[in-house]
């Protein structure tokens, strides 16, 4: 079974919500990316989104843009990120890892070769923010017939009548974008966010996660009865950077978030 789906089943049995973070691979360097993944597995983070840096990240706000830019300048490439995952798996790190990357990075590598490499090294899921359902045929074809790597679907506050089709056959979890626009707009959720999340939850057979603009567990208190988990990206990157990449700070943040999330 897929690591993401496995983890989500366990959480469901324990009646816990999922705590998911986003980390830009290679920020500040690949060695510390490895460390920040290991620390989080111990601290109780459930799933990690690993951002593969791209030169033109149109779905990201300034914080993640900057992290991506610095990672690229530091020499981070898709091949090196694959190697990182391979090493982590060899070191018995079992936390589900999701690649968050732009479609050009996949196309450049070759869609089929990319999928094969994901399966081989142990990338459990893919989030591709510039690949709406209309453009997913090729990658879905390449992913067919295996369970190791799955494509995760995104919905937005304006998806509305598109939701049933997006959810049709969706696996893992649904990523509900909390606001219009890009990552990192601190807790400025869409005005219809509650209705929107309820709408998705009603129609979804798989867990529903909310992301974009979340800083603390308290930010998702208003929707605690709807969502199955929260995704923290920009705020996590900011905290990581502002603490000068202090693993102790990361550990504490993750432990606190996870505890508070389940106490909501």
């Amino acid at each position, binding site marked *: 079974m897929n690591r993401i789906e496995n983890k989500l089943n366990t959480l469901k049995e324990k009646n816990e919500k999922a705590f998911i973070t986003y980390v830009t691979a290679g920020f500040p360097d690949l060695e510390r990316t490895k460390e920040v993944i290991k620390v989080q597995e111990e601290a109780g983070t459930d799933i990690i989104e690993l951002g593969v840096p791209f*030169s033109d990240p149109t779905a990201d706000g300034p914080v993640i843009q*900057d992290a991506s830019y610095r990672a690229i300048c530091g020499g981070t490439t898709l091949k090196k990120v694959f190697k990182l995952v391979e090493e982590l798996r060899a070191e018995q790190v079992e936390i589900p890892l999701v690649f968050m990357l732009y479609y*050009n990075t996949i196309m450049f*590598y070759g869609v089929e070769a990319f999928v094969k490499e994901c399966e081989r090294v142990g990338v459990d899921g893919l989030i591709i923010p510039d*690949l*709406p359902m*209309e453009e997913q045929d090729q990658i879905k074809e390449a992913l067919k017939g295996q369970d190791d790597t799955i494509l995760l679907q995104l919905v937005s*506050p304006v998806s509305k009548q598109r939701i049933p089709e997006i959810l049709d056959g969706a696996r893992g979890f649904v990523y509900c974008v909390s606001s219009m626009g890009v990552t990192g707009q601190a807790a400025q959720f869409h005005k219809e966010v509650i209705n929107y999340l309820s709408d998705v939850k009603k129609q979804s057979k798989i867990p529903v996660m909310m992301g974009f603009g979340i800083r603390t567990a308290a930010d998702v208190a208003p929707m605690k009865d709807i969502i199955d988990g929260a995704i923290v990206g920009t705020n996590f990157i900011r905290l990581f950077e502002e603490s000068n990449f202090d693993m102790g700070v990361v550990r504490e943040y993750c432990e606190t978030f996870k505890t508070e999330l389940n106490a909501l």
Partner: protein
Amino acid sequence: MSKKTYYGEFGGQFVSESLMNTLQEIDAAFEEAIKDEKFLKEYHYYLKQYVGRETPLYFAERLSEKYKTKIYLKREDLNHTGAHKINNVMGQILLAKRMGKKKVIAETGAGQHGVATATVAALFNMECTVYMGAEDIKRQALNVMRMEMLGAKVVSVTSGSNTLKDATNEAIRNWAKTAEDTFYVIGSAVGPYPYPKMVKEFQSVISREAKKQILEAEGRMPDVVMACVGGGSNSIGMFADFIEEKDVRLIGVEAAGLGIETGKHASAMALGKMGVLHGMKSYLLQDENGNIELAHSISAGLDYPGVGPEHAYLRDSGRAEYVSITDVEAMDALMELCKLEGIIPAIESAHAVAYAIKLAKELKEDDITIICLSGRGDKDVNTISDYLAGKGYLN
């Protein structure tokens, strides 16, 4: 792939889910508008009375005489605001108005599309924000001033390389945030569908007029039709009505910058690496890791790392040829056109002139070439002056 959003295997809609409804709304509104007599009448009224169309198809006498072939110039430089850009902006803003939008945003490199958008936004009393790379703001201070005089807000973009590619990224980001009440006016034949189609539709007035004019002047179709290609808006407009005339050679001229072999150029098609950027699948300049490379050209308007998807398709299907011209060749042609015809062309357009001069050797005296003179060179005087000083021309 036979989806309507594609040109062969190029095009598509590679945008975030937040923008998909918006694209579908624009597509529906656009298809309806271009079948609506009232909309078309209004569009053509403003093209005539405000933009100053039709533009002349001028027989370049001395240039033709010198190079021993017939060369015509389609004078898009005579449009209001100085380039072809306004043809498309007029169409898109009238569409925005029809859709009930009150705000428009645009990206700009050299500033021509920004100025055209600010101009038409002023005309229709719409709030206008233009995203421009910090580097370009420095290089094109005069156009920034013009946009501000016209009431637009110019936002300095300081991400990535601080140029057009990054301004476009930033416009897309802000569009995703504000699409519920804001229309994004894209200036080139790029972006997610239906943008390449809209830009072509609104620029095709260039070839519609040129076809009629050449028949009047020569009684036959031209042998060659030529235009410069950055993202490809003036060229797709110049090609549009000639695509079906199979005997007409269509030539797109990209910027070779310092030379393709130096890596400092803007010829997305010369190396032919396919990729996805700004919502479309097309040919792009990319490095060995699949990141987008910076384009280089002395002309800010051609300084773009991609090309419109229909051009990629026209190239692969063999219907159009794409060539490239270096900075030096373009500047030589620019000076020649000044001296021979009394026309100061934009550096962008000078690339097409340069290739026409090169090609003339292969052509017969009776052969007819039409060059799209996409814009005037007033905006480039500073660049030209720096270039000439460096080359010793002015001493």
